[in-house]
């Protein structure tokens, strides 16, 4: 089966029932996608599938046949950080960093859907991604900084 991963064609031979999370991490080397709970509660394994944020632990790889999948490795363009990635560094939005890939992808989609989100919009948009380090304040600040 084939799908597009970060702009390139990815091919995968094996059971379509395997979790997309495992295929990304173990077969395709995209270990930026993390497993925090394995049951769709924490958002550490968030990826973007055809423009929507999805928990990759809940998706069978067979379901993404022909889809466009973006992981954190696909955000920076040729080594140049996106404004959002840079803001996460500048505002202290990444501490231990384990939620950061999923948080960045959720924020990325939020900003694509809503150009000028309010703080409450950002909270709503990131509600599926748990962070235990920051208290969210600096994450929200970083996302809002990218709307100016």
């Amino acid at each position, binding site marked *: 089966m084939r799908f597009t991963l970060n702009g390139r064609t990815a091919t995968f031979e094996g059971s379509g029932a395997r979790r997309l999370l495992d295929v990304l991490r173990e077969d395709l080397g995209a270990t930026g996608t*993390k497993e925090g709970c394995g049951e769709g509660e924490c958002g550490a394994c968030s990826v973007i599938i055809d423009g929507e944020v999805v928990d990759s632990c809940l998706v069978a790889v067979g379901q993404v046949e022909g889809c466009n999948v973006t992981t954190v490795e696909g955000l920076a363009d040729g080594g140049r950080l996106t404004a959002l990635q840079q803001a996460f560094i500048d505002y202290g939005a990444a501490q231990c960093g384990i939620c950061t890939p999923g948080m960045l992808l959720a924020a990325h989609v939020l900003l694509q859907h809503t150009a000028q989100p309010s703080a409450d919009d950002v909270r709503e948009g990131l509600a599926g991604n748990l962070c235990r380090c920051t208290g969210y304040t600096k994450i929200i600040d970083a996302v809002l900084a990218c709307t100016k």
Partner: protein
Amino acid sequence: MCPSLTPATAVGRSVPRREGADKVTGRARYTDDLVIPGAWYGKTVRSTVPAGRIRSITLDPAFEWSQVVMVTAGDIPGENVVHLIRDDQPVLARAGGEIRHREEPILLLAAADRATLDEAARHIRIEYERAEPVFELSEATEVYASLEISKGEVVERLEGVEVVERSFRVGLQEQLYIEPQGFIAIPESNGAIRVIGSLQCPFYVHRALKRALKLTDAQAIVVQAETGGGFGGKEEYPSMVAIHAALLARKAGRPVRLIYDRHEDLAATTKRHPGVIKHRTTVKKDGTLLSQDIEIVLDGGGYCTLTPVVLSRAAIHAAGAYSCPNVRIRARAVATNTPPNGAFRGFGAPQSLFAAELMVEHVAERLGMSSLDLRRKWMLRLGDTTATGQKLTESVGSDLVLDAALSAAPPIRPSAHPPIRRGRGLSLVFHGSGFTGSGEKKLQGTIGFEALADGTFRILTASTEIGQGTKTIFCQIAADALGVGIDKVVLAPQDTSLVPDSGPTVASRTAMIVGRLVQEAATDVQARLQRGEKAPIRLQKSYIQPDSLHWDETNYRGDAYPIYAWACTIADVDVDMNTGEVRVTDLVTAVDCGKAIHPVMAEGQIEGGSLQAVGWATIEEIKMKDGGYQNDRLATYLIPTALDAPRIRTILVENPYSHGPSGAKGIGELPMDGPAPAIIAAIHDATGVWLDEVPATPEKVLAACASR
């Protein structure tokens, strides 16, 4: 040189996080991200009863056992203990041995793939002889630790004196780092074993590994991978995981990955100690504090772990940030048949300060005074003595943080919707930075420092980066002491074969104690370079306790901590009178941190710690059933999301400490202390009812309102 051309100082500036770019691009490698060719997968088979003995372990002959490697207690080459304080916790339950809690490790399995591993586990039958478990603190007879702090004489009932008595209850809490526990063990030549894992304290793991596997210093190699949060949860438990992985790797003769899933992590690993704290306070009618009589009982669970040290910190903070001439604190920690409780940010202080702060509220209510006025009357100031008799001689931030928080708090807006009631609460806390008592002196944390021939400098410490910023602030401190740009300073990896033991990354000690060593070492190296000495230079620096500190461990008298950090928190809540739901809508916290080495990271510590405390105070409830946690999944153990979290406003107050690097004090744990009592006071302000316990779940709030 023109002054404008000297490098800008790094301390006090929020420079980019050292490993920030790796973390935002997915390049940072956490334990489970590491690709180790030929590695098998490991699994822990655990007890399903809270108390008893193993009667038999039966392997189903229908399964092809040659596909797996199995480790039992008989395979342990050294001593069957997870080395810590009391050495009571076995690595694996002994044959016919005692079971003291559910999820106690009994045997280990490894296989080439996960399916075989799970299949093997299904073909093992363990039978038990059950014993009567103990869950209630009042029924517990085994005591892990007890201590008494005494100052003056406790005042009995007298004419014209008010006596206020209350009992408080605090609940279990899971650290819930987002990266679960995990290790990869790799056998190497000469009998050495390398373990790479998610951890806070490389040398805790090193010592435990040596003891259980009978290894020499050089044979046990412990390496920290990028670590996805710790909060104390990766202080002592990683020793267990590392030993298990190493035992499997040794027997299998190949690398083994032992990575917990969330369910196993929640079900089996340590939690914050729950407990009961009773206060009896005597005051004059004008509010003069006469005496505090406090009793603390903490639940240690099935094994001792770090419980005696947690109890010690709980007791020392139990009188709160107040000056009282007569204090008696009696504290004990007991054994029950739940999984062991252990280190968690705050380490006993959040529990005892919760009670102390609410006691101020209860006394104020009895006297008809404002609790704010009472705090101002009672609080410790420069020259006052604490419950252990420690005279506070510098950097006492009580007034500063109280004033700063009050002036930053927004006006209270009345609720527009009748079922929602608004309230505000305040707390004032202090937290000892660094190890308790003689801890730092005994440990003598040591760092290495190198000037390299290429003009760069290298810091060698075992202090780990777990999100709090160790890597960045050490480089800032060193760069300023050397007078070079921060890019000229690098850190050696946290690998026990490369770095000296600077001590565990715990107890709000890393920035203040180890950071100071970094500053001193860098200053020495700079002096030697200026005297004309040529790189490479390598030196070591060990902690020397300031002469002014004296601690009597037997009687719990003297300087319990080198210094204290202070915080005042103001919490605003909305209470839904129909559902009992408590929403923390605003949180202001002013923190006396001595000096903010990296203001953004200091704020980040405070905001993250504050939200953990909001979770503990409101929604993080663990329900027990027959000695196990009923809600042992992330779908049922809830932590605050971005929607639940209040906007947290942090005010950093700089009130330098003479022995801290650039005046800094440790603040990693402090933010866990203040929010819970402020929230309970805010709920009272909103509803008129007192909940003397956390978490204040909707059920408890509704029940309290109904019984009013």
